[in-house]
């Protein structure tokens, strides 16, 4: 599907000249190692014995009864560090090591990718520095502490909106300066080629396991798969192995924040335009002159103004559909899953769940819906408590 990092007209490679050799080198290394038996064996080892894969596919008995169709959760919340992010960080850290890089850097929003990167760095003995917006540091103190405990240096970013997009800017500036020794471990299916393709491949393990598990459990493919979309790595990871199975509906859910009319959201497909941000051509929230807009979501992991280019492509060809859920709907879903099933979801994943709850009438008792539970909600308890306090 991808020709030189293009998904239809989306994707590409829009970066300063200084970084060109680095991304070329990365693309070459990825091509070389992705089918390398030893690399695959090592990665499998880490995924099984360190990350804890395969993660279960859990049938939600109570929720299914209430909703009138079968609901399954793909349990990425049970992966080591509590989210799907580790699938990518372990793989990229391993690749960085093969490339002879001694130091890895990464951006983080909520801190989940930062924690997963710091963890992979420990497991593979690499030096690690994380860039994080000053506002996000304030919102996610526990994850900052986790990263430090894991031996990473956390650099606060005070420029721009002091959130994820500015953390990426700063990580890119670091990479420009230290490109010879450093690998930039990007956290989602964004950025210049080969990142969107490579990270999709690393996350596709989610969908491959899901397929096997649902066939075993139900003897059939699901009616629909629902996943939240920030950059979109958990979504593409679970979608990708099902793309050829056109009878399976693929549904991505963006962050509707306080509603589209409020302008405080991160629903790129709902009100963004095509543009270029951080190396890739995709849907971007921007003003008419191309200045990037600030975003809002209660889920820091969805709080980003651009969407992965392959999602833009899947939407254009009609293979996947994209909707959004608001902060309020996500918090409601967060509560419902906790109460009904004893599983506290990440606020990001709660967006996917919220869509399924609000669209229950689209499905009937013969339908099977899988929701990608991309992360666990422990990190969000304080945020949800505050939100409920304010809204009650």
């Amino acid at each position, binding site marked *: 599907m991808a020709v030189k990092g293009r998904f239809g007209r989306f994707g590409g490679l829009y970066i300063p000249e200084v970084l060109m*050799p680095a991304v070329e080198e990365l693309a070459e290394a990825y091509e070389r190692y992705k089918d390398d038996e030893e690399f695959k064996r090592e990665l499998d080892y880490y995924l099984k014995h360190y990350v804890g894969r395969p993660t279960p596919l859990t049938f939600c008995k109570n929720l299914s009864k209430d909703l009138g169709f079968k609901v399954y959760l793909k349990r990425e919340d049970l992966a080591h560090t509590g989210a799907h992010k580790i699938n990518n960080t372990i793989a990229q850290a391993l690749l960085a090591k093969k490339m002879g890089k001694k130091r890895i850097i990464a951006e983080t929003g909520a801190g989940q990718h930062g924690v997963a990167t710091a963890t992979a760095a420990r497991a593979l003995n690499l030096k690690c520095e994380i860039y994080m917006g000053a506002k996000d540091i304030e919102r996610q103190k526990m994850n900052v502490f986790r990263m430090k405990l894991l031996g990473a240096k956390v650099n606060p970013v005070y420029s721009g909106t002091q959130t994820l997009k500015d953390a990426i800017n700063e990580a890119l500036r670091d990479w420009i300066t230290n490109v010879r020794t450093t690998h930039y471990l990007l956290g989602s299916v964004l950025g210049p080629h080969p990142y969107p393709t490579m990270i999709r491949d690393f996350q596709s393990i989610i969908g491959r396991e899901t397929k096997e598990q649902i066939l075993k459990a139900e003897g059939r493919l699901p009616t629909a798969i629902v996943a939240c979309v920030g950059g979109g790595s958990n979504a593409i990871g679970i979608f990708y192995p099902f793309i050829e199975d056109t009878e399976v509906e693929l549904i991505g859910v963006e962050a509707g924040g306080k509603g589209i009319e409020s302008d405080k959201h991160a629903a790129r497909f709902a009100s963004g335009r095509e543009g270029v941000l951080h190396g890739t051509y995709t849907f971007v929230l921007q003003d008419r002159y191309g200045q990037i807009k600030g975003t809002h979501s209660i889920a820091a992991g969805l709080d980003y103004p651009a969407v992965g280019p392959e999602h833009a492509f899947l939407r254009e060809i009609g293979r996947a559909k994209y909707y959004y859920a608001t902060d309020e709907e996500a918090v409601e879903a967060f509560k419902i899953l906790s109460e009904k099933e004893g599983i506290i979801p990440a606020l990001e994943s709660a967006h996917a769940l919220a869509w399924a709850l609000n669209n229950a009438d689209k499905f009937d008792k013969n339908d099977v819906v899988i929701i990608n539970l991309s992360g666990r909600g422990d990190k969000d308890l304080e945020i949800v408590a505050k939100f409920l306090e304010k809204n009650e």
Partner: protein
Amino acid sequence: MHSKVKGDALKLEAVQKNRIDVKFEELRAKGEGALIGYLTLGDPNIEDSKKLVRALAKHVDILELGIPFSDPIADGPTIQGAIDRALKAGMNTDIAFEIVKELKLDIPLIFMTYYNIVLQYGEERFIKRCRDVGIDGVIIVDLPIEEAQNLLDICARYNVHFIFLIAPTTREDRLFKILSRARGFIYLISLLGVTGAREKLQEETIEKTKWALNYVKIPLAVGFGISKKEHVKAVIKAGASGVVVGSAFVKIVEKNLGNIEKAIKEIENLAKELKEGTKVK
């Protein structure tokens, strides 16, 4: 190879030559290097920015004007600050064109920006307006040659030079690809890092200048980390045709917020001093 095709292409080149080429020829004849100065348009506000640009234009050979972009990944804190001030002051692409049109500066002018700014304005509309207001070249920091084909063709059509950047990390195969489409001059980023004034000229800057001169047969301008007269001297002595100085000028704006007259005076003084550094051949 360049000189061989020169005879045949003379007619074509005469048409495609613009003020940038003429300026480098004049300076070469005088034995001087080019001082290329940079300011962010709209910094610290739109009216004061015009005064600063007009003042700097009096003392540099070529002027590079930044159209601010909210996420400038190749810029260090100094130029980030200028961009923040400009955007807060309401700067946008239309105003950038209006400023240039109003100032009627009689030196070669270059717009420097990021690709999304050009893309959202419309590539052809942007370049056509460049030609109409007297912009001679564009530098688009995050548009490598692989993604630039369409814009390169448009630039050729309107005789606006697409100025390429090369970096210390640029591999030989890409360098040849770039040189085959290069016009005006080549901008050498002389060190790994983002924009910003540095106290000492890095050894790498001189090494990389000499390295680039083995390949680049059109004028070579060297930028990043050049802020003092002795830096300029060293780079021109090493064989470069010009130097680009940006953050050192922007720092003066930053230091004198609220006192535009002082900023103008200091910028003029620095430009004069740096210009002296180009006269070493």
